[in-house]
């Protein structure tokens, strides 16, 4: 009997789709249910922030940084301010650095909670999404208390932070943290040992160490493959050297390991926050610098550990009031390029699980 002739067909997992986490297009060529080729298409969310930044002075750029990647806005603000401060040789007071770490780690927990909610909805479990949002509400209230804005806060300044935290902030944060570990236990109870979830994520989308290093993957994605790379320990920027925390590592680099890594990272961030709230020193929150910010001529590249990986900022200054060039090296851009490599041979349902577990974020890819 001769073989039945089948034909490969092309589907558009288009810009508007419930699980591309934003506007991202995948052109998928399939043979039946099995994927033979994936081609991502980006640019739907390009806002030319890098070009806009060339026409604004240094203070005006900070709100743009909030919106570059709105789920981890504190990180992007810090990533932008860090090279400028280094180039100008500004020393930031300790209390300001502690406040920055507090805001960043709260933001890391919030970003991972969103990842958790959307990942479980992609896999069909609808309820954890709302539980994650409930915890995130507590964090957003903390942000609003300190900065006035829930998601885009415009809080960091060159030389420190904009204003001090109000009374009651640390108490509220402590009460949030005291129940947080139990809440993470609840989330793990729904998904971690659930055999449906394990079958959907174990051995799916394995990123080997070679592929990860070749493509420049970073963050929890590479830590799940077993490589110990966390800029908070490697570079020790800000005051992270004074905190005691572990880096969770995985073994296989499949979706399940990435899930476990991020869940553990949430707990580690809570640990950092508890130490920060105990040890925060009194003092100034901003160095006295001239209101006109004019860095010397030069170029500098600095990177930080954002929830998605290595976020780098390459800053070229020509000595004027506006940056000459501000280039962002975003982790999701590199992580997206891995998808065509690891998705071949899997099914569409697996592609959804992979995209969810990699924590891709189109605003970061397109800038």
């Amino acid at each position: 009997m001769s073989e039945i002739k089948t034909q490969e067909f092309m589907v558009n997992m288009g810009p508007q789709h419930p699980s591309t986490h934003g506007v991202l297009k995948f052109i998928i060529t399939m043979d039946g249910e099995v994927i033979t080729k994936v081609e991502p298409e980006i640019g739907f969310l390009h806002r030319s922030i890098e070009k806009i930044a060339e026409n604004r002075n240094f203070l005006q750029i900070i709100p743009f940084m909030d919106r570059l990647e709105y789920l981890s806005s504190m990180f992007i603000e810090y990533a932008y301010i860090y090279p400028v401060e280094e180039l100008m040789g500004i020393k930031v007071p300790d209390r300001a650095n502690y406040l920055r770490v507090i805001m960043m780690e709260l933001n890391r927990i919030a970003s991972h909670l969103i990842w958790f909610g959307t990942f479980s909805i992609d896999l069909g479990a609808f309820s954890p999404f709302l539980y994650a949002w409930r915890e995130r509400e507590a964090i957003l209230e903390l942000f609003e208390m300190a900065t006035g804005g829930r998601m885009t806060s415009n809080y960091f300044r060159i030389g420190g932070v904009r204003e001090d935290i109000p009374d009651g902030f640390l108490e509220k944060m402590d009460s949030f943290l005291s129940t947080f570990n139990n809440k993470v236990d609840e989330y793990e109870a729904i998904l971690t040992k659930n055999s449906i979830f394990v079958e959907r994520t174990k051995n799916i989308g394995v990123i080997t160490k070679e592929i990860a290093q070749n493509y420049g993957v970073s963050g929890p994605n590479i830590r799940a493959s077993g490589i110990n790379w966390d800029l908070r320990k490697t570079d020790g920027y800000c005051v992270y050297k004074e905190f005691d925390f572990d880096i969770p590592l995985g073994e296989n680099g499949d979706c399940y390991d990435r899930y476990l890594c991020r869940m553990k990272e949430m707990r580690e961030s809570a640990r950092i926050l508890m130490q920060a709230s105990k040890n925060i020193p009194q003092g100034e929150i901003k160095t006295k610098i001239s209101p006109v910010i004019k860095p010397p001529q030069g170029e500098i590249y600095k990177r930080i550990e954002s929830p998605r990986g290595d976020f780098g900022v390459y800053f070229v200054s020509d000595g004027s009031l506006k940056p000459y060039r501000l280039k962002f090296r975003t982790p999701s851009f590199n992580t997206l390029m891995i998808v065509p490599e690891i998705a071949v041979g899997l099914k569409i349902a697996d592609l959804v699980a992979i995209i969810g577990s990699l924590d891709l974020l189109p605003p970061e890819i397109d800038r």
Partner: protein
Amino acid sequence: MEQINNLITKISPLLLEAIYFAFWAAVIASALIAIVMGLVWLERKISAHMQQRFGPMVVGRHGYLQLIADAIKLVLKEDITPTDADKIVFFLAPVLIFTGAFMAYLVIPLGNDLIVRDLNIGIIYIIAVTSLTVLSIIMAGISSGSKWSLLGAFRGAAQIISYEVPLILSLLGPIMIAGSLSTVAIVNSQSRIWFILVQPVAFIIYIICATAEVNRTPFDIPEAESELVAGYFTEYSGMKFGMFYFAEYINMFTAACIAVIVFLGGSSGAFLPGPIWFLIKTFFVIFIFMWLRWTLPRFRVDQLMEMGWKYLIPVAFLNLAVTALIIGIL
């Protein structure tokens, strides 16, 4: 009085039968639509409370009029037919699924003698008629002119067909014990003990297969929202979508009714009248369906098929064999 008697004897018995069925069809249709509205409201409230939120609260006290507002909205929406669609088949698919969903209620007994027609092939008739859903899903998927709908239709058809086998196998155990296919006979033979206590394995298999048959999570692959937007009924809008949506809930109610008839004793129970017990038990089974939907993640297609063919069918056969053995011994 005499004139009415004369009138009735003059009308042929066939016409009387037709009027009888038309009357009951209208009653069942209206009752089902009311029940579906209640079910959708219940689903939204249960899911909301499981997710720590309130659900509909504005339209009517605690949102019980929300469904009427939604139905009016659906009726007023523009009915879009895609250019690439096969127009006749596209139109017929929701009609067919609605018909198949309703036809099962011919043999559902609400209480003693409260049944439209006690066919002596009761259970098999229900299974056969609810299989019209598969046909309608394939029609909807193929005629929509969209690759995503096609994918959803194929997955849906594969899933429903493969889960029909363990479904019937699990029902055969209680049928063997009752000795009849008629729904009334099965209910009556549970007068001493409910079949859920005699056939617990069959009950579990039945619940799993029924969830697969009505396309609910964890088996909602044909309409996997995160992958295929809405699967085979992506391209439907307005009241045609409403038909699919309602038919899904009617199917769920049918599956729950079968569970109650075959495993939970139908309408038997003390103090309250039969139909009230029937409804209470049905809503209990429906609560289980809803609970599963809002807790568990979704299977992948091949894992689903694997579970159906490799695990459920052997267990169902084993259950059948043990039942037959025990009946033979006793």
